[in-house]
Protein backbone atom coordinates (compact mmCIF):
# COMPACT_ATOMS: atom_id res chain seq x y z
CA UNK A 1 0.00 0.00 0.00
CA UNK A 2 2.97 2.25 0.43
CA UNK A 3 3.57 2.90 -3.25
CA UNK A 4 -0.12 3.30 -3.97
CA UNK A 5 -1.21 6.92 -3.93
CA UNK A 6 -4.55 7.26 -2.26
CA UNK A 7 -6.78 10.13 -3.29
CA UNK A 8 -8.31 11.98 -0.39
CA UNK A 9 -12.10 11.52 -0.29
CA UNK A 10 -12.84 15.20 -0.69
CA UNK A 11 -11.27 15.15 -4.11
CA UNK A 12 -14.12 13.08 -5.52
CA UNK A 13 -16.50 15.59 -4.03
CA UNK A 14 -14.72 18.41 -5.80
CA UNK A 15 -14.85 16.48 -9.03
CA UNK A 16 -18.51 15.54 -8.50
CA UNK A 17 -20.13 18.17 -10.75
CA UNK A 18 -17.73 17.48 -13.55
CA UNK A 19 -18.12 13.72 -13.19
CA UNK A 20 -21.89 13.97 -13.34
CA UNK A 21 -21.70 16.27 -16.33
CA UNK A 22 -19.26 13.93 -18.07
CA UNK A 23 -21.46 10.92 -17.38
CA UNK A 24 -24.35 12.59 -19.17
CA UNK A 25 -22.52 14.35 -21.96
CA UNK A 26 -19.78 12.09 -23.14
CA UNK A 27 -17.97 14.64 -25.24
CA UNK A 28 -16.65 18.11 -24.58
CA UNK A 29 -17.58 20.67 -27.20
CA UNK A 30 -15.85 19.20 -30.23
CA UNK A 31 -12.87 20.88 -31.79
CA UNK A 32 -11.81 18.09 -34.14
CA UNK A 33 -13.55 16.03 -36.81
CA UNK A 34 -13.38 12.98 -34.58
CA UNK A 35 -15.01 14.96 -31.78
CA UNK A 36 -17.72 16.28 -34.12
CA UNK A 37 -18.47 12.76 -35.29
CA UNK A 38 -18.61 11.25 -31.82
CA UNK A 39 -20.75 14.11 -30.53
CA UNK A 40 -23.27 13.17 -33.18
CA UNK A 41 -23.45 9.49 -32.49
CA UNK A 42 -23.02 9.38 -28.71
CA UNK A 43 -26.04 11.60 -28.07
CA UNK A 44 -29.48 10.00 -28.27
CA UNK A 45 -31.13 12.95 -29.97
CA UNK A 46 -28.24 13.74 -32.27
CA UNK A 47 -27.63 10.16 -33.37
CA UNK A 48 -30.89 10.20 -35.32
CA UNK A 49 -28.92 12.41 -37.70
CA UNK A 50 -26.12 11.32 -39.96
CA UNK A 51 -22.63 12.30 -38.83
CA UNK A 52 -22.06 14.06 -42.11
CA UNK A 53 -24.63 15.73 -44.26
CA UNK A 54 -24.44 16.87 -47.84
CA UNK A 55 -24.04 20.61 -48.33
CA UNK A 56 -26.95 20.61 -50.74
CA UNK A 57 -29.30 19.35 -48.00
CA UNK A 58 -28.55 22.47 -45.96
CA UNK A 59 -29.57 24.91 -48.66
CA UNK A 60 -32.53 26.82 -47.31
CA UNK A 61 -33.59 27.81 -50.82
CA UNK A 62 -33.81 24.14 -51.76
CA UNK A 63 -35.80 22.64 -48.88
CA UNK A 64 -37.33 25.85 -47.48
CA UNK A 65 -37.15 23.94 -44.19
CA UNK A 66 -40.76 22.83 -44.71
CA UNK A 67 -40.31 19.29 -43.42
CA UNK A 68 -38.62 20.56 -40.28
CA UNK A 69 -41.28 23.20 -39.74
CA UNK A 70 -43.98 20.52 -40.04
CA UNK A 71 -42.25 18.42 -37.42
CA UNK A 72 -41.70 21.34 -35.05
CA UNK A 73 -45.33 22.40 -35.41
CA UNK A 74 -46.29 18.84 -34.49
CA UNK A 75 -43.99 19.11 -31.48
CA UNK A 76 -45.66 22.37 -30.41
CA UNK A 77 -49.06 20.72 -30.93
CA UNK A 78 -48.13 17.78 -28.70
CA UNK A 79 -46.88 20.04 -25.90
CA UNK A 80 -49.78 22.52 -26.01
CA UNK A 81 -52.25 19.68 -26.58
CA UNK A 82 -51.13 17.81 -23.47
CA UNK A 83 -51.39 21.01 -21.45
CA UNK A 84 -54.91 21.68 -22.75
CA UNK A 85 -55.92 18.12 -21.77
CA UNK A 86 -55.48 19.11 -18.12
CA UNK A 87 -58.53 21.36 -18.39
CA UNK A 88 -60.64 19.79 -21.11
CA UNK A 89 -63.59 17.43 -20.60
CA UNK A 90 -65.01 15.63 -23.65
CA UNK A 91 -68.63 16.06 -22.62
CA UNK A 92 -71.35 17.89 -24.51
CA UNK A 93 -72.44 19.63 -21.33
CA UNK A 94 -68.97 20.68 -20.20
CA UNK A 95 -66.74 21.06 -23.25
CA UNK A 96 -67.95 24.53 -24.21
CA UNK A 97 -67.74 25.80 -20.62
CA UNK A 98 -64.18 24.58 -20.49
CA UNK A 99 -63.45 26.66 -23.56
CA UNK A 100 -64.84 29.70 -21.76
CA UNK A 101 -62.74 28.80 -18.70
CA UNK A 102 -59.63 28.67 -20.86
CA UNK A 103 -60.51 32.16 -22.01
CA UNK A 104 -61.52 33.51 -18.63
CA UNK A 105 -59.87 31.85 -15.66
CA UNK A 106 -57.03 29.56 -16.70
CA UNK A 107 -53.68 31.34 -16.68
CA UNK A 108 -52.37 31.47 -20.26
CA UNK A 109 -55.35 29.30 -21.23
CA UNK A 110 -56.39 31.36 -24.20
CA UNK A 111 -52.78 31.66 -25.27
CA UNK A 112 -52.21 27.90 -25.26
CA UNK A 113 -55.45 27.34 -27.15
CA UNK A 114 -54.38 29.95 -29.70
CA UNK A 115 -51.00 28.26 -30.09
CA UNK A 116 -52.67 24.88 -30.52
CA UNK A 117 -55.20 26.10 -33.04
CA UNK A 118 -52.81 28.15 -35.18
CA UNK A 119 -50.15 25.44 -35.12
CA UNK A 120 -52.77 22.96 -36.32
CA UNK A 121 -53.81 25.18 -39.20
CA UNK A 122 -50.14 25.89 -39.88
CA UNK A 123 -49.28 22.21 -39.90
CA UNK A 124 -51.94 21.40 -42.49
CA UNK A 125 -50.64 24.19 -44.70
CA UNK A 126 -46.93 23.46 -44.20
CA UNK A 127 -47.29 19.71 -44.72
CA UNK A 128 -49.06 20.45 -47.99
CA UNK A 129 -46.35 22.93 -49.02
CA UNK A 130 -43.75 20.33 -48.08
CA UNK A 131 -45.43 17.92 -50.48
CA UNK A 132 -45.31 20.60 -53.19
CA UNK A 133 -41.58 21.12 -52.55
CA UNK A 134 -40.88 17.40 -52.78
CA UNK A 135 -42.84 17.11 -56.00
CA UNK A 136 -41.48 20.20 -57.71
CA UNK A 137 -37.89 19.13 -57.00
CA UNK A 138 -38.56 15.59 -58.24
CA UNK A 139 -37.56 14.17 -54.87
CA UNK A 140 -39.94 11.21 -55.03
CA UNK A 141 -37.80 9.50 -57.66
CA UNK A 142 -36.03 6.22 -56.78
CA UNK A 143 -34.90 5.34 -54.18
CA UNK A 144 -37.31 7.67 -52.38
CA UNK A 145 -40.61 6.35 -53.75
CA UNK A 146 -41.81 4.82 -50.52
CA UNK A 147 -40.95 7.87 -48.47
CA UNK A 148 -43.23 9.86 -50.77
CA UNK A 149 -46.00 7.34 -50.05
CA UNK A 150 -45.36 7.76 -46.32
CA UNK A 151 -45.53 11.52 -46.83
CA UNK A 152 -48.94 11.29 -48.50
CA UNK A 153 -50.16 9.13 -45.60
CA UNK A 154 -48.77 11.72 -43.18
CA UNK A 155 -50.75 14.43 -44.98
CA UNK A 156 -53.94 12.38 -44.62
CA UNK A 157 -53.31 11.69 -40.92
CA UNK A 158 -52.57 15.40 -40.39
CA UNK A 159 -55.88 16.32 -42.01
CA UNK A 160 -57.74 13.76 -39.93
CA UNK A 161 -56.04 14.95 -36.75
CA UNK A 162 -57.02 18.51 -37.50
CA UNK A 163 -60.55 17.44 -38.37
CA UNK A 164 -61.05 15.45 -35.14
CA UNK A 165 -59.72 18.38 -33.10
CA UNK A 166 -62.18 20.71 -34.79
CA UNK A 167 -65.16 19.16 -32.97
CA UNK A 168 -63.77 19.40 -29.45
CA UNK A 169 -64.71 23.03 -28.54
CA UNK A 170 -68.35 22.00 -29.12
CA UNK A 171 -69.40 25.31 -30.57
CA UNK A 172 -71.60 25.92 -33.61
CA UNK A 173 -68.62 26.06 -35.93
CA UNK A 174 -67.38 22.69 -34.66
CA UNK A 175 -70.71 20.91 -34.63
CA UNK A 176 -71.82 21.80 -38.13
CA UNK A 177 -68.41 21.41 -39.68
CA UNK A 178 -68.29 17.86 -38.36
CA UNK A 179 -71.90 17.18 -39.37
CA UNK A 180 -71.07 18.22 -42.92
CA UNK A 181 -67.69 16.47 -42.89
CA UNK A 182 -68.92 13.10 -41.65
CA UNK A 183 -71.83 13.15 -44.07
CA UNK A 184 -69.31 13.42 -46.88
CA UNK A 185 -67.75 10.20 -45.57
CA UNK A 186 -71.12 8.46 -45.71
CA UNK A 187 -71.19 8.82 -49.50
CA UNK A 188 -68.43 6.27 -49.87
CA UNK A 189 -69.86 3.21 -51.59
CA UNK A 190 -70.64 0.10 -49.51
CA UNK A 191 -68.80 1.09 -46.34
CA UNK A 192 -69.80 4.77 -46.18
CA UNK A 193 -72.83 4.47 -43.89
CA UNK A 194 -71.08 1.99 -41.59
CA UNK A 195 -67.99 4.19 -41.47
CA UNK A 196 -70.03 7.21 -40.47
CA UNK A 197 -71.86 5.24 -37.80
CA UNK A 198 -68.65 3.84 -36.31
CA UNK A 199 -66.98 7.25 -36.45
CA UNK A 200 -69.87 9.00 -34.72
CA UNK A 201 -70.90 6.12 -32.47
CA UNK A 202 -74.48 7.17 -33.20
CA UNK A 203 -76.59 8.26 -36.13
CA UNK A 204 -75.98 11.95 -35.41
CA UNK A 205 -73.18 14.07 -34.02
CA UNK A 206 -73.54 13.98 -30.23
CA UNK A 207 -71.89 12.86 -27.02
CA UNK A 208 -70.64 9.61 -28.53
CA UNK A 209 -69.07 11.43 -31.46
CA UNK A 210 -67.40 13.92 -29.14
CA UNK A 211 -65.87 11.12 -27.06
CA UNK A 212 -64.75 9.19 -30.12
CA UNK A 213 -63.20 12.21 -31.78
CA UNK A 214 -61.45 13.04 -28.52
CA UNK A 215 -59.88 9.58 -28.23
CA UNK A 216 -58.86 9.66 -31.88
CA UNK A 217 -57.48 13.15 -31.49
CA UNK A 218 -55.42 12.73 -28.32
CA UNK A 219 -54.34 9.08 -28.51
CA UNK A 220 -54.90 7.10 -31.69
CA UNK A 221 -53.93 9.57 -34.39
CA UNK A 222 -50.92 11.15 -32.63
CA UNK A 223 -49.53 7.63 -32.08
CA UNK A 224 -50.00 6.77 -35.76
CA UNK A 225 -48.52 10.10 -36.82
CA UNK A 226 -45.48 9.66 -34.55
CA UNK A 227 -44.81 6.20 -35.91
CA UNK A 228 -45.11 7.38 -39.52
CA UNK A 229 -42.86 10.39 -38.82
CA UNK A 230 -40.24 8.07 -37.31
CA UNK A 231 -40.27 5.84 -40.39
CA UNK A 232 -40.29 8.92 -42.65
CA UNK A 233 -37.14 10.30 -40.95
CA UNK A 234 -35.44 6.93 -40.85
CA UNK A 235 -36.06 6.43 -44.56
CA UNK A 236 -34.48 9.80 -45.38
CA UNK A 237 -31.19 8.45 -44.06
CA UNK A 238 -31.59 5.00 -45.56
CA UNK A 239 -32.43 6.53 -48.94
CA UNK A 240 -29.18 8.49 -48.94
CA UNK A 241 -30.20 11.79 -47.38
CA UNK A 242 -32.25 14.51 -49.02
CA UNK A 243 -32.48 14.48 -52.79
CA UNK A 244 -29.89 16.43 -54.73
CA UNK A 245 -28.86 16.79 -58.36
CA UNK A 246 -26.57 14.11 -59.72
CA UNK A 247 -23.69 16.50 -60.33
CA UNK A 248 -23.57 17.18 -56.58
CA UNK A 249 -22.44 13.59 -56.11
CA UNK A 250 -19.66 13.90 -58.68
CA UNK A 251 -16.27 13.67 -57.10
CA UNK A 252 -14.08 16.72 -56.83
CA UNK A 253 -11.22 16.79 -59.32
CA UNK A 254 -8.59 15.91 -56.72
CA UNK A 255 -10.27 12.69 -55.58
CA UNK A 256 -8.21 9.46 -55.72
CA UNK A 257 -8.53 7.82 -59.09
CA UNK A 258 -9.14 4.29 -57.84
CA UNK A 259 -12.20 5.24 -55.87
CA UNK A 260 -15.36 3.49 -56.94
CA UNK A 261 -18.86 4.64 -56.42
CA UNK A 262 -20.73 1.41 -56.01
CA UNK A 263 -24.04 0.56 -57.57
CA UNK A 264 -26.21 -1.83 -55.67
CA UNK A 265 -25.89 -2.83 -52.04
CA UNK A 266 -22.43 -2.12 -50.77
CA UNK A 267 -20.64 -3.17 -47.68
CA UNK A 268 -19.73 -0.13 -45.66
CA UNK A 269 -16.59 -0.43 -43.67
CA UNK A 270 -15.32 1.49 -40.73
CA UNK A 271 -12.33 2.52 -42.75
CA UNK A 272 -11.70 1.35 -46.24
CA UNK A 273 -8.55 -0.02 -47.81
CA UNK A 274 -8.80 2.66 -50.47
CA UNK A 275 -8.52 5.45 -48.00
CA UNK A 276 -5.96 3.57 -45.99
CA UNK A 277 -3.67 3.21 -48.96
CA UNK A 278 -3.61 6.92 -49.41
CA UNK A 279 -3.38 7.69 -45.71
CA UNK A 280 -0.75 7.20 -43.07
CA UNK A 281 0.81 3.73 -42.73
CA UNK A 282 -0.67 3.35 -39.27
CA UNK A 283 -4.10 2.92 -40.83
CA UNK A 284 -2.96 -0.16 -42.72
CA UNK A 285 -2.83 -2.12 -39.50
CA UNK A 286 -6.50 -1.58 -38.86
CA UNK A 287 -9.04 -4.36 -38.87
CA UNK A 288 -12.05 -3.81 -41.01
CA UNK A 289 -15.52 -4.84 -40.01
CA UNK A 290 -18.81 -4.77 -41.82
CA UNK A 291 -20.89 -1.91 -40.45
CA UNK A 292 -23.96 -2.27 -42.54
CA UNK A 293 -25.47 -2.49 -45.97
CA UNK A 294 -26.41 0.64 -47.84
CA UNK A 295 -28.24 0.70 -51.14
CA UNK A 296 -27.95 3.04 -54.02
CA UNK A 297 -25.27 5.11 -55.62
CA UNK A 298 -24.61 7.05 -52.45
CA UNK A 299 -22.21 4.65 -50.87
CA UNK A 300 -18.92 6.34 -50.43
CA UNK A 301 -15.84 4.52 -49.39
CA UNK A 302 -13.16 6.09 -47.33
CA UNK A 303 -12.44 9.57 -46.16
CA UNK A 304 -12.13 11.18 -49.55
CA UNK A 305 -12.92 14.78 -50.28
CA UNK A 306 -16.59 15.34 -51.04
CA UNK A 307 -19.28 17.97 -50.65
CA UNK A 308 -20.48 16.89 -47.23
CA UNK A 309 -20.04 18.68 -43.93
CA UNK A 310 -20.33 17.56 -40.34
CA UNK A 311 -23.81 17.54 -38.88
CA UNK A 312 -22.33 19.17 -35.80
CA UNK A 313 -22.63 22.10 -35.91
CA UNK A 314 -23.91 22.75 -39.45
CA UNK A 315 -27.12 20.70 -39.46
CA UNK A 316 -27.91 21.14 -35.77
CA UNK A 317 -27.60 24.90 -35.92
CA UNK A 318 -29.84 24.99 -38.98
CA UNK A 319 -32.44 22.87 -37.18
CA UNK A 320 -32.22 25.02 -34.08
CA UNK A 321 -32.77 28.16 -36.12
CA UNK A 322 -35.79 26.68 -37.89
CA UNK A 323 -37.19 25.54 -34.53
CA UNK A 324 -36.77 28.97 -32.96
CA UNK A 325 -38.32 30.71 -35.96
CA UNK A 326 -41.26 28.28 -35.91
CA UNK A 327 -41.90 28.81 -32.20
CA UNK A 328 -41.51 32.58 -32.58
CA UNK A 329 -43.94 32.60 -35.49
CA UNK A 330 -46.59 30.63 -33.60
CA UNK A 331 -46.14 32.83 -30.52
CA UNK A 332 -46.51 35.96 -32.57
CA UNK A 333 -49.68 34.83 -34.32
CA UNK A 334 -51.11 33.59 -31.00
CA UNK A 335 -50.47 36.96 -29.38
CA UNK A 336 -52.45 38.89 -31.95
CA UNK A 337 -55.19 36.50 -33.08
CA UNK A 338 -57.56 34.55 -30.90
CA UNK A 339 -58.77 31.11 -31.91
CA UNK A 340 -62.39 31.36 -33.00
CA UNK A 341 -65.12 30.31 -30.60
CA UNK A 342 -68.71 30.74 -31.69
CA UNK A 343 -71.93 30.22 -29.77
CA UNK A 344 -72.48 26.89 -28.02
CA UNK A 345 -73.93 24.09 -30.11
CA UNK A 346 -77.51 24.53 -31.16
CA UNK A 347 -78.49 21.27 -32.79
CA UNK A 348 -81.58 22.83 -34.31
CA UNK A 349 -80.12 25.82 -36.06
CA UNK A 350 -77.30 25.29 -38.46
CA UNK A 351 -75.45 28.50 -39.23
CA UNK A 352 -76.13 29.62 -42.74
CA UNK A 353 -73.93 28.78 -44.52
CA UNK A 354 -72.49 25.88 -42.51
CA UNK A 355 -68.87 25.57 -43.50
CA UNK A 356 -66.31 22.84 -42.93
CA UNK A 357 -62.74 23.75 -41.80
CA UNK A 358 -60.99 25.82 -44.48
CA UNK A 359 -58.86 22.94 -45.77
CA UNK A 360 -62.03 20.99 -46.51
CA UNK A 361 -63.84 23.89 -48.15
CA UNK A 362 -62.51 22.88 -51.55
CA UNK A 363 -64.09 19.51 -50.90
CA UNK A 364 -67.32 21.14 -49.74
CA UNK A 365 -67.36 23.29 -52.87
CA UNK A 366 -67.00 20.16 -55.00
CA UNK A 367 -69.71 18.46 -52.95
CA UNK A 368 -72.14 21.27 -53.75
CA UNK A 369 -72.06 20.12 -57.38
CA UNK A 370 -72.20 16.38 -56.82
CA UNK A 371 -72.24 14.63 -53.47
CA UNK A 372 -70.63 11.41 -54.60
CA UNK A 373 -68.14 12.72 -57.14
CA UNK A 374 -67.22 15.83 -55.19
CA UNK A 375 -67.00 14.18 -51.81
CA UNK A 376 -65.73 10.71 -52.57
CA UNK A 377 -65.00 9.98 -56.22
CA UNK A 378 -62.66 12.85 -57.04
CA UNK A 379 -60.85 13.02 -53.65
CA UNK A 380 -60.27 9.26 -53.61
CA UNK A 381 -58.89 9.42 -57.15
CA UNK A 382 -56.64 12.32 -56.19
CA UNK A 383 -55.26 10.49 -53.15
CA UNK A 384 -54.74 7.32 -55.17
CA UNK A 385 -52.90 9.24 -57.89
CA UNK A 386 -50.76 11.00 -55.27
CA UNK A 387 -49.83 7.65 -53.71
CA UNK A 388 -48.95 6.24 -57.13
CA UNK A 389 -46.98 9.26 -58.37
CA UNK A 390 -43.52 7.70 -57.90
CA UNK A 391 -44.65 4.49 -59.59
CA UNK A 392 -46.24 6.24 -62.57
CA UNK A 393 -43.47 8.76 -63.26
CA UNK A 394 -40.37 6.60 -63.62
CA UNK A 395 -38.09 9.05 -65.46
CA UNK A 396 -35.04 9.79 -63.35
CA UNK A 397 -34.05 13.08 -64.95
CA UNK A 398 -34.34 16.41 -63.19
CA UNK A 399 -34.03 15.27 -59.60
CA UNK A 400 -32.88 17.78 -56.99
CA UNK A 401 -33.72 21.00 -58.80
CA UNK A 402 -36.76 23.20 -58.56
CA UNK A 403 -38.87 23.24 -61.73
CA UNK A 404 -36.40 21.17 -63.73
CA UNK A 405 -37.00 21.49 -67.49
CA UNK A 406 -37.04 17.71 -67.86
CA UNK A 407 -40.02 17.54 -65.53
CA UNK A 408 -42.11 20.18 -67.26
CA UNK A 409 -45.11 17.92 -67.86
CA UNK A 410 -45.14 16.36 -64.37
CA UNK A 411 -44.77 19.75 -62.69
CA UNK A 412 -47.44 21.24 -64.92
CA UNK A 413 -49.92 18.48 -64.00
CA UNK A 414 -49.11 18.74 -60.31
CA UNK A 415 -49.39 22.53 -60.26
CA UNK A 416 -52.73 22.25 -62.04
CA UNK A 417 -53.90 19.93 -59.24
CA UNK A 418 -52.61 22.36 -56.59
CA UNK A 419 -54.09 25.47 -58.21
CA UNK A 420 -57.50 23.87 -58.84
CA UNK A 421 -57.70 22.83 -55.18
CA UNK A 422 -56.53 26.20 -53.89
CA UNK A 423 -59.04 28.00 -56.13
CA UNK A 424 -61.85 25.71 -54.88
CA UNK A 425 -60.84 26.46 -51.29
CA UNK A 426 -60.81 30.21 -51.99
CA UNK A 427 -64.25 30.01 -53.63
CA UNK A 428 -65.61 27.96 -50.72
CA UNK A 429 -64.11 30.31 -48.15
CA UNK A 430 -64.84 33.75 -49.56
CA UNK A 431 -67.39 33.43 -52.34
CA UNK A 432 -70.08 31.32 -50.73
CA UNK A 433 -72.81 32.84 -48.65
CA UNK A 434 -76.18 31.77 -47.24
CA UNK A 435 -77.61 28.65 -48.89
CA UNK A 436 -74.20 28.21 -50.51
CA UNK A 437 -75.11 30.85 -53.03
CA UNK A 438 -72.44 32.76 -54.84
CA UNK A 439 -71.59 36.00 -53.05
CA UNK A 440 -68.96 38.63 -53.56
CA UNK A 441 -66.69 39.22 -50.58
CA UNK A 442 -66.50 42.94 -51.45
Amino acid at each position, binding site marked *: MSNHTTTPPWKSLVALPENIWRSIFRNPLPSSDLGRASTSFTNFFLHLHPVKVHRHSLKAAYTLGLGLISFFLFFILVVTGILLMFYYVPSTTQAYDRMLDLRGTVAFGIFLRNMHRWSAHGMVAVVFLHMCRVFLTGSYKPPREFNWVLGVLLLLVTLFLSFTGYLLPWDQLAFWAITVGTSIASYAPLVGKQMKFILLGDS*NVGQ*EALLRFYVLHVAVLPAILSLLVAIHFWRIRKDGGLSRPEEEDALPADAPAQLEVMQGPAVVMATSPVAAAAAEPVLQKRHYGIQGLVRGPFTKIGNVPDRSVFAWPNLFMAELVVFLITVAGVLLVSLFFNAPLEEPVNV*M*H*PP*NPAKAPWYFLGLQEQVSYS*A*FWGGVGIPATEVLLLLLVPYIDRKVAGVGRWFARERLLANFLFLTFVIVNVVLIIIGTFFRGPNWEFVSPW
Partner: protein
Amino acid sequence: MKTQVNPAIEEGGDALTRRRLLSWLSGFGLFGSLIVTVFSNLIFIKPRATYGQPNRFSIGKPEEFPSGARVSLDARRVCIVRDGDKIAAISTTCTHLGCIVSVSETGFSCPCHGSRYDQDGNVTGGPAPRALPWYQVSLAPNGEIEVDKDTEIEAGNYLRV
Protein backbone atom coordinates in the same frame (compact mmCIF):
# COMPACT_ATOMS: atom_id res chain seq x y z
CA MET B 1 -29.14 -34.46 -24.68
CA LYS B 2 -28.83 -35.19 -28.32
CA THR B 3 -31.51 -33.63 -30.45
CA GLN B 4 -33.28 -36.08 -32.67
CA VAL B 5 -33.96 -34.58 -36.07
CA ASN B 6 -36.90 -36.18 -37.75
CA PRO B 7 -35.74 -37.49 -41.13
CA ALA B 8 -38.96 -36.41 -42.79
CA ILE B 9 -38.42 -32.81 -41.75
CA GLU B 10 -34.75 -32.89 -42.49
CA GLU B 11 -35.40 -34.02 -46.04
CA GLY B 12 -38.17 -31.46 -46.44
CA GLY B 13 -40.56 -34.28 -47.26
CA ASP B 14 -44.31 -34.01 -47.14
CA ALA B 15 -44.83 -36.80 -44.64
CA LEU B 16 -47.26 -35.80 -41.92
CA THR B 17 -45.27 -36.48 -38.80
CA ARG B 18 -46.65 -36.04 -35.34
CA ARG B 19 -44.42 -33.02 -34.78
CA ARG B 20 -45.52 -31.36 -37.97
CA LEU B 21 -49.18 -32.00 -37.25
CA LEU B 22 -48.84 -30.54 -33.77
CA SER B 23 -46.96 -27.51 -35.12
CA TRP B 24 -49.68 -26.84 -37.67
CA LEU B 25 -52.46 -27.25 -35.14
CA SER B 26 -50.85 -25.02 -32.55
CA GLY B 27 -49.94 -22.53 -35.25
CA PHE B 28 -53.55 -22.35 -36.41
CA GLY B 29 -54.67 -22.01 -32.83
CA LEU B 30 -52.27 -19.21 -31.99
CA PHE B 31 -52.71 -17.21 -35.19
CA GLY B 32 -56.42 -17.85 -35.12
CA SER B 33 -56.74 -16.40 -31.65
CA LEU B 34 -54.77 -13.36 -32.79
CA ILE B 35 -57.04 -12.79 -35.76
CA VAL B 36 -60.16 -13.31 -33.66
CA THR B 37 -58.81 -10.79 -31.15
CA VAL B 38 -58.28 -8.16 -33.81
CA PHE B 39 -61.67 -8.90 -35.33
CA SER B 40 -63.38 -8.63 -31.95
CA ASN B 41 -61.88 -5.15 -31.57
CA LEU B 42 -63.54 -4.11 -34.80
CA ILE B 43 -66.87 -5.35 -33.49
CA PHE B 44 -66.17 -3.67 -30.16
CA ILE B 45 -65.97 -0.16 -31.61
CA LYS B 46 -69.33 -0.45 -33.32
CA PRO B 47 -71.88 0.49 -30.65
CA ARG B 48 -74.86 -1.79 -30.08
CA ALA B 49 -76.84 0.68 -28.06
CA THR B 50 -76.82 4.38 -28.76
CA TYR B 51 -77.53 7.03 -26.23
CA GLY B 52 -78.97 9.69 -28.50
CA GLN B 53 -82.52 10.33 -29.64
CA PRO B 54 -84.84 7.33 -29.90
CA ASN B 55 -86.08 6.69 -33.43
CA ARG B 56 -89.65 5.94 -32.33
CA PHE B 57 -91.46 8.66 -30.46
CA SER B 58 -94.88 10.19 -30.02
CA ILE B 59 -95.53 13.79 -30.97
CA GLY B 60 -98.88 14.47 -29.30
CA LYS B 61 -102.55 14.34 -30.26
CA PRO B 62 -103.70 15.00 -33.84
CA GLU B 63 -105.65 18.04 -32.61
CA GLU B 64 -102.37 19.80 -31.91
CA PHE B 65 -101.73 19.99 -35.64
CA PRO B 66 -104.43 22.04 -37.40
CA SER B 67 -105.19 21.41 -41.05
CA GLY B 68 -102.61 22.91 -43.38
CA ALA B 69 -99.97 22.93 -40.67
CA ARG B 70 -96.37 22.18 -41.53
CA VAL B 71 -94.63 21.93 -38.18
CA SER B 72 -90.91 21.27 -38.20
CA LEU B 73 -89.74 19.45 -35.06
CA ASP B 74 -86.04 20.26 -35.36
CA ALA B 75 -84.97 18.23 -32.33
CA ARG B 76 -86.65 15.16 -33.84
CA ARG B 77 -85.66 16.11 -37.34
CA VAL B 78 -89.10 15.56 -38.81
CA CYS B 79 -91.71 17.85 -40.26
CA ILE B 80 -95.30 17.01 -39.40
CA VAL B 81 -97.60 17.79 -42.31
CA ARG B 82 -101.35 17.93 -41.86
CA ASP B 83 -103.72 18.30 -44.75
CA GLY B 84 -107.38 17.96 -43.79
CA ASP B 85 -107.67 14.66 -41.98
CA LYS B 86 -104.43 13.37 -43.44
CA ILE B 87 -101.18 13.49 -41.50
CA ALA B 88 -97.60 12.55 -42.41
CA ALA B 89 -94.03 12.93 -41.16
CA ILE B 90 -91.30 14.00 -43.59
CA SER B 91 -87.63 13.90 -42.65
CA THR B 92 -85.93 17.27 -42.30
CA THR B 93 -82.44 15.83 -42.52
CA CYS B 94 -81.04 16.96 -45.84
CA THR B 95 -80.22 13.93 -47.99
CA HIS B 96 -77.16 15.77 -49.17
CA LEU B 97 -74.96 16.21 -46.10
CA GLY B 98 -77.18 15.91 -43.08
CA CYS B 99 -77.97 19.53 -42.28
CA ILE B 100 -81.45 20.39 -41.04
CA VAL B 101 -83.63 21.71 -43.83
CA SER B 102 -85.99 24.50 -42.97
CA VAL B 103 -89.60 24.81 -44.07
CA SER B 104 -89.94 27.35 -46.85
CA GLU B 105 -92.88 28.59 -48.88
CA THR B 106 -92.21 26.17 -51.71
CA GLY B 107 -91.32 23.23 -49.51
CA PHE B 108 -87.96 22.78 -47.83
CA SER B 109 -84.56 24.40 -48.28
CA CYS B 110 -81.18 23.50 -46.87
CA PRO B 111 -78.93 26.24 -45.48
CA CYS B 112 -75.72 24.30 -46.02
CA HIS B 113 -75.48 23.71 -49.75
CA GLY B 114 -78.67 25.19 -51.08
CA SER B 115 -80.66 22.02 -51.77
CA ARG B 116 -84.34 22.69 -52.36
CA TYR B 117 -87.30 20.34 -52.06
CA ASP B 118 -91.00 20.71 -52.86
CA GLN B 119 -93.86 20.29 -50.41
CA ASP B 120 -93.63 16.47 -50.65
CA GLY B 121 -89.86 16.43 -50.23
CA ASN B 122 -88.95 15.87 -53.90
CA VAL B 123 -85.71 17.53 -54.98
CA THR B 124 -86.25 20.69 -56.99
CA GLY B 125 -82.75 22.10 -56.92
CA GLY B 126 -79.29 21.95 -55.43
CA PRO B 127 -76.98 19.01 -54.83
CA ALA B 128 -79.36 16.74 -52.89
CA PRO B 129 -79.22 13.28 -54.45
CA ARG B 130 -82.70 12.06 -53.47
CA ALA B 131 -86.02 13.10 -51.99
CA LEU B 132 -86.62 13.55 -48.28
CA PRO B 133 -87.94 10.25 -46.89
CA TRP B 134 -91.38 9.90 -45.35
CA TYR B 135 -91.64 8.05 -42.07
CA GLN B 136 -94.35 5.71 -40.85
CA VAL B 137 -96.94 7.48 -38.71
CA SER B 138 -99.42 5.55 -36.57
CA LEU B 139 -102.01 6.27 -33.94
CA ALA B 140 -101.03 4.91 -30.54
CA PRO B 141 -103.71 3.45 -28.21
CA ASN B 142 -103.57 6.59 -26.04
CA GLY B 143 -104.59 8.68 -29.06
CA GLU B 144 -101.17 10.19 -29.70
CA ILE B 145 -99.40 10.17 -33.02
CA GLU B 146 -96.33 7.97 -33.12
CA VAL B 147 -93.52 8.49 -35.62
CA ASP B 148 -91.17 5.63 -36.46
CA LYS B 149 -88.02 6.90 -38.13
CA ASP B 150 -86.75 3.38 -38.68
CA THR B 151 -89.53 2.67 -41.18
CA GLU B 152 -89.55 4.70 -44.37
CA ILE B 153 -92.74 4.70 -46.40
CA GLU B 154 -93.55 5.84 -49.89
CA ALA B 155 -94.19 9.54 -50.34
CA GLY B 156 -97.86 10.45 -50.41
CA ASN B 157 -98.95 7.82 -47.90
CA TYR B 158 -100.89 9.77 -45.30
CA LEU B 159 -102.42 8.54 -42.08
CA ARG B 160 -106.11 9.37 -41.79
CA VAL B 161 -107.10 10.66 -38.39
